[in-house]
Every structure is written in C-alpha cells, then in structure tokens.
C-alpha cells in the first residue's frame, strides 16, 4: 500500500501522542477513524512495539500487550522512579504481583463485567496479598526450587521478601515512613498506580479505579481475541514447565 507523506506524518503524530500519554482524544480520534491509511499505519507502529490500539468511546488507548517484550517500560526505569535507588528485582516483582492482585480484587465475579467494589482499602490489599502468598507457600519447597533452575527470579525470594516486611501495626498512626512495612511498600505501589493514572486515592487510604484502568480491563482483558492471547501467554509457561 502506498502512503502519501501527509498521512505518514499524521500517523506519526498520533502515535507519538499515544506513546507519550497512553491515550489520545477527539481530533486525533477523528484522524484515526476517518483515514484508513492513518489507521493502518498507527496500528502497525503499535504492533512494532508490542502494543495495541483500542478505541473506547471518544478516546484512543495505547495498551502494551501481555508479553515479555523489550519494548515495554524497562525494569530499571520502574525501579529507579518508583522504588528507590536500592530496589532490587525482587522489589519490582513484588510490585507486579501487588498490581495484579489489586485488579483481581476489583474484578472477582463471573456474574458481572463491572467492578464489584467501589474502592479497595490499603489494609484489604495487604490481606489479599497475604492470601496469595499463603497459596504460594502451599507448593512444596522442591517444586519451587525446580522452577528456580529455569528462571532467574524465584518465588521463594518473593515469599521471604513479603514475610520479612513488618505486618501492619494497628497502633502506628502513619505507615508511610521509612521502615519497610507491608503498608509502606504498598504505599509506593499506590503512588506508582496513581502516577500511571490507574488509581485514585479517595482518602483514608482507600483506592478507586480510574476510567483508564476500567477501560483497560474491560476492553483489553475482556476482549475475545486479546483474552485468548493472554491465556496462551500463560499456557505457554505451563507447557514449558511440563517439558522439563
């Protein structure tokens, strides 16, 4: 297909806007909808960096795909920006786990595709992670060591990490100080989520989802095609596990 330079530039502008903000509005949306060439180009650009473009109402979203992609935001960047200079990969993966648990808490029903809660208190979040860690501990030590051989980061260190953190002290007034407690760790994850425009703080340490977050879950995770991709992604790991 031949593109004229105007179309290419338009597509490029639109892509840059998306890459910078994660979403684009009205005028850009018009360009995207009206011109098949622009649309095709933007989609291609996105694919190249393992992302997809989703239309949701009056907005366009650039959503990174579920994948271990070199184009996605770098581990180092995340560590440096959100977890402090001393953070290790364990901290980072702890954060990933916390984020996944966070969304699980909002979408935990087969009866409705809407979120089942309006907000998640930080304490509930801690409890929920506790539960997941408990599930992890049910795997036998040997089983977990077996996985470690295959991958560089292991679940055992995550379990240790979490258990080494002080559980919530009910009497302490402020949990956000320098002592590493579960609450203060989740406080940094909270700041990360806020920064990514995924969560809003309602006060009282209660977190609610933003429209962006809801859109990603309902338009990406619940999309027939992408959902299949996500399942395949997880299935791929299971298979590798079976092979060894």
């Amino acid at each position, binding site marked *: 297909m031949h593109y004229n330079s105007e179309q290419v530039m338009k597509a490029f502008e639109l892509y840059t806007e998306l890459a910078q903000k994660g979403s684009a509005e009205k005028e850009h949306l018009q360009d995207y909808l009206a011109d098949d060439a622009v649309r095709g180009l933007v989609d291609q650009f996105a694919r190249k960096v393992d992302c997809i473009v989703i239309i949701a109402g009056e907005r366009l979203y650039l959503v990174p*795909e579920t994948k271990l992609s070199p184009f996605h*935001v770098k581990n180092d960047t995340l560590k440096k920006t959100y977890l402090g200079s001393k953070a290790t990969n364990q901290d980072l993966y702890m954060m990933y786990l916390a984020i996944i648990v966070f969304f*699980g808490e909002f979408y935990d029903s087969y*009866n409705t595709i809407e979120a089942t809660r309006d907000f998640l208190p930080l304490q509930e979040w801690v409890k929920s992670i506790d539960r997941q860690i408990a599930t992890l501990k049910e795997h036998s030590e040997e089983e977990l060591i077996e996985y470690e051989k295959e991958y560089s980061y292991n679940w055992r260190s995550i379990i240790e990490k979490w258990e080494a953190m002080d559980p919530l002290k009910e009497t302490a007034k402020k949990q956000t100080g320098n002592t590493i407690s579960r609450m203060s760790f989740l406080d940094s994850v909270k700041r990360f989520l806020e920064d990514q425009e995924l969560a809003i703080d309602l*006060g009282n340490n209660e977190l609610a989802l933003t*429209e962006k977050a809801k859109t990603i879950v309902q338009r990406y995770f*619940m999309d027939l095609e992408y959902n299949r991709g996500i399942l395949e992604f997880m299935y791929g790991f299971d298979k590798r596990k079976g092979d060894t």
Partner: protein
Amino acid sequence: MFQYRPDEIANGYRERIARLALFDPLYELERKTQADNDGKPIDFFGLGLLSLLFFFEQMLIRNRKTGVKELSAYLRQAAKNEINLDANGFENLARTIIHTLRPPHGKRRERKFFNWETKKFDSVQYSILKADSFDVKTNTQYYTLDDDGLELVFATKEYFSEFQLSINQLILRKQLEKGEFEGALRQINEMRIDVENLQQRIIKIKHEIQRNIISEETYSRFKAIIEDVYYRLKRENEEFKELNLFVKETKERLYYQETEKQEGHTYELVLKISKELEEVHYEHGLLLQESIELKTKALKAAQESLYYMGINSFNFDQEITARLVSSPLPLEAARGLAAPFLKVHKEELWSPLTVFAEQRIDEEEGQPVEEAFLSVTDEGENLRKREIQSKNFTKLMKLVIEAVRGRNSITLKEIASYVKETKGENLLQHRSFYDFFIILHQRSPLTPQEMPAEEHSQILDEALALLKGKKLTVTEEKEILELTDRYSIQNMIIKVEEI
C-alpha cells in the same frame, strides 16, 4: 375479556428487586442491638433514615463538607432528649451508620437473589453513600449521597427520580402562583440537586458507553437511553423557559404593587428566585448541550467499536491472579501480565550538541530567582496570619480582664461561661481561643514589659500591653473542660497581681 399472561408477570424482576434492595441498609441497621446509657435500645432504623435526610439536606444547602463529625453533631442535637449518650457515643453511632451505608471494605453493597424472570441466580449492586472529598490536614473524609442513595431518599417521598425535576417544576409553579416565595426558593434548590444528579448520570452513561458497547444489542439499548435522556431534557428545558417567563411577569407585577406599599421584602425574594432559577436553567442548558454531543459523537465512536468482540464474563481474580500463584507461573510472567497497565517505554536521550547550546549561568550563583519570590510571598502570608492572630489575642485579653473585674483570680471555666453569656458560643468554636490560653500557660508568668525574642513574642505584644502594671500567673487544674464538640482543654487558674 382480557387475556391472562402468566409469563409477563415477572417482567423486569431484576429492576424491582434493585429498588427493594435499596432499603436493605436501613433494615440492617434495625437489627443492631445497642442501648444508650439508660439501657434504652437505640432506634437505629430511624437514625439511619435521619442520616440519609441529613445528607440530602446538606446537598440542598450545597455544603460539601459533611463527615462523621458533622453527622454526629446533628444526631446529638436531634436526639438529645431521646438518647442518653455522650459525644463519643454519638460519634460511634454516626460511624456505624456511615459504615453501613458505605461499607469500609470497599465492596459495593450487594443483594443476591433468584431471578424469576430468567430463572437464574442473579445479583444487584448499589451504592448509597460515596466519598466526596478528603481533607488531608484534618484527615477527614467527607461524604455525599450516591445515585442510589438519592433514589432511596426519593423513594420515601412517593415519586420517582425520573420525574423529579418535572414534578419540582410543577410544584414551583404552584408555589409561585400562590405567592409562597420562601418555599419556592427551597424548591429551586431541590431542582439544583436534580440537575447535578442528571449531570452525574450523563457522565456515567458516557463512561459506560466507552467501556461496554460490545454488541448490537447493547448499542441499541444505549441509543434508546440517550434518546430518552435527550427528550426528557428538552421537555424540561421548555418548562424552564416558561417558568422563567412566569417569574419575570411576577416580578414586574410585584414591582408596581410594591412601590405602592413601600415594602420591599417580597420583591427581593422574587429577585433572588429569578436569579437562582436562571442559574439552574443555565446548568440544565449545558446538560442539554452535552446530551446532544453524546447523541452524535459518542454513539458514533462507539459504533466503531462494534467490531470488538467481548467475552461475557471474566474473573480477573480467578483467571489471572489465582492462575499466577497456584500454578505457579514463573515470576517473569507477572511482568508480562502487568504490562497492559503500564505506559510504554520512553527513551530519554541526551544530545552531545547540548554542549554548544546557550548555557544558563545564573543557576550556579546561589538560589534561582523564582525561589526567592516564593519565600517572600510565604513570609507575607505568615505575617498576615500573625497579624490576625495578634488581633484575636488582644480581643481575648480584653475579655479576660473584663471577666476578672476586680477579683484577683479566675478559672478558665468561669471565663468560658462569661464569654458564652456575653458573646455567644461562636467564640468558643474558634481555635484561637484555645491557642491563646495554651500560650498564656506556656509563657506564665506574664508581665507587660516582658519581650522575649521568641516566635510568639509579637503576637502577644498588644495583648500584654493591656495588662498595665499587672502580672498574670497561669496554673493548670486537673479538670478537663469540654467546651464544644470539637475542643476540650484543661482547666486553668489565672491569677492577677499588682506589681
């Protein structure tokens, strides 16, 4: 003879249950068994309803700062003869009620039931109260009625919220005709809530369209909803125009009447009504505009996403979280699964050409200029605050001297009751009152000459000048005074001696 249609009896079963479920929180409150200090059981059901009405009233007067404190103050005042509890007891009561209306774990209130229309298990979710804002300084959360909460309040008032605005318009017209202008003003405020409620509903619909249009069926459902909203707004808009005209006529009529009678009160009231009505009308007009936009743009955009095929149900917790930890998948997978929520990578580059670019030298010479400005304004604000505080303290010192009247000592308790008698309770609600005595106690003994170079020194200067050759000694007493709901302070004895 009419036909008997057993299949249609259960039509709309879900909506009916949803409406019934709204009352659940009140019944839940009713089941609570707690007694007051006299052992009398507390009427939780009633207090729950009162609280709902209280929040509604706060919305009417457009007060957005209603939290536990405000509710408990209201309940305490409303039930002071009926329920024997202290301030703390009422605060706990208010907290219990708020927690029931807005569960602190964040899950929406839910009612599970068997749907006799579809013959399946089903559930409805609703939210009565929501967090409105948060004051970081005092760590207080403020609440307001959510959509369903308003519905509940309206449901106790014999008509439904969809017709609320029209009905209010009708009532307003009747009131204007009868000349009940005070009531009319309140009616307009109710209309304002209706409009705000509509506004929220439209935003909600907009968001839902954004996320939920997944099939032709839902598309046409939303289309119908939007059409409905549009026609309703249009009809209401017509009525608003007529009302405005009517108010204008009333205004003119009154103008001529009033000049004969030389009595301006009613006329002023009508002027106010006309102003407020126009405001509400304007807000409403914006909504009409928005609904048109919704009809054209949003729906069209949504049509695009019809290509999208959604799955009917998805449980993130089960399918992603549980899968990750129970398989378990390698830790790396967590990164991949979290990826969709993150922004894409941004490379930050530095060009060597920057070396030749214009350099800013001034930054190296100490502080940047902006910073200096900031601290100046900061200082200015502090100074202003201090000035105000200093005036307050002078006023308070005058009161103390008045209260002493020739005696040589007085307790804080006596001062407080003196202030209450002469100046009313307002002064006691003010923080300065307490600051003043705490500072007095800290700096005791006080003489007019003393001028230490401390932070508070200038603040008290003027107040101390009033002492004129007297010396104040302040000592603490054991008793704690609860002067208002908000403040309590230890009792003190203030001695006055001639030097």
